[in-house]
């Protein structure tokens, strides 16, 4: 009888769900984004659009100790960012970066920031682009000239209505822990709070 009890004892041990007691810890090793860290020029790699046979390249310049941000997207009529066609520029000031980190719905560690729009401009780089914009009264404007920046702030151009001057630009920003690149929010996918819900996959390198 003792032998059966012995066997029963071990069987109960096996079925009792023993195993290793678990302890966990979580370390936040993400970089803390500050204005000082952002100050400077961050450049994206050339991004091609094979369907349209065009390309674009965006440069972010954080200046005035990170209070100002100028985002300049140069569009090209080829696939390798050689021949400029037009330049789109968004100028912001009074940039306010939230103190604490948060996360997107995809668990990406980010910080939120807001800034005031000081201007949004479009500059045709060739006469053919200027003529095209003129002929279509793009943004309701006809004064398009090659090499001249024209403000489109507050205007509806095609399917996009741009922020007006002094509007608040709400965005999110992510940085890798090695602090070599940043990503900005996808402003076309904003939540009701005004902040983008997701990040663009495009990286900007310092």
């Amino acid at each position, binding site marked *: 009888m003792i032998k059966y009890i012995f066997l029963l004892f071990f069987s109960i041990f096996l079925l009792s769900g023993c195993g290793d*007691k678990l302890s966990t810890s979580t370390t936040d090793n993400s970089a803390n984004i500050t204005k000082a860290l952002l100050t400077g020029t961050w450049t994206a790699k050339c991004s091609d659009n094979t369907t349209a046979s065009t390309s674009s390249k965006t440069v972010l310049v954080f200046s005035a100790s990170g209070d100002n941000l100028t985002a300049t997207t140069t569009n090209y009529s080829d696939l390798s960012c050689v021949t400029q066609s037009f330049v789109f520029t968004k100028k912001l000031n009074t940039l306010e970066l939230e103190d604490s980190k948060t996360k997107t719905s995809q668990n990406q560690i980010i910080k939120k920031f807001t800034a005031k729009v000081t201007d949004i401009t479009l500059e045709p780089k060739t006469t053919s682009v200027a003529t095209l914009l003129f002929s279509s009264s793009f943004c309701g404007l006809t004064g398009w000239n090659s090499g001249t920046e024209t403000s489109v702030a507050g205007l509806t151009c095609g399917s996009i209505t741009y922020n007006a001057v002094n509007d608040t630009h709400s965005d999110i920003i992510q940085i890798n822990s*090695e602090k070599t690149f940043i990503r900005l929010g996808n402003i076309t996918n904003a939540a009701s709070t005004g902040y983008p819900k997701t990040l663009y996959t495009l990286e900007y390198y310092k």
Partner: protein
Amino acid sequence: MSLLAESDNSSSEAGLFYSTWGSGVMGGYNYSNEIHIGGSFSSGDTSTKSKGLGTSMKSQSTFMTVNAFGRYYLRDLGITDGLFGQAGLAFRNWTGKGSIIDDRTQAKIASIKIDWSPVVIVTGVGWQKIWGSLSFSVAMNASIGGSRTIEYTENMHRFSDSMKKDLEEKTDYPTNLVIYIGYSF
């Protein structure tokens, strides 16, 4: 009836085994027809690679285990050559690590490190079959009294609760199935 006497009166045996915790060698001494004292050494490793949305996850775990145990055979139970119960100590050198990398930039998104405590009690039950000098056994063991520490490091992503739970379940090895074949001498 004494099975040892029935076979060849051998007092020792050694053999190879495959188990959840790795493959290795096992040897032992038959103190009596019912009592067996044994030891084993096993090693194993697992590595996984998986792809997510723009990310790659790699993990690797290594297991080295030395086990010393006593086994009691229920020879007169009449189930072939004997059911047995066993208990002992396992000395473990188990480590695990993993990382999630961003495919586009190769930036580290997050990583994990797992450590297991070095000593645990191991108990189990099994079944043995003997053919002359050859023996075959299957056993199911369980560890008791050990601990496991998982360190999550977040670089660009937060670990979700579901991801943590999934990982914790996949790196839990509370039981060990052992399939052994040995030779008595």
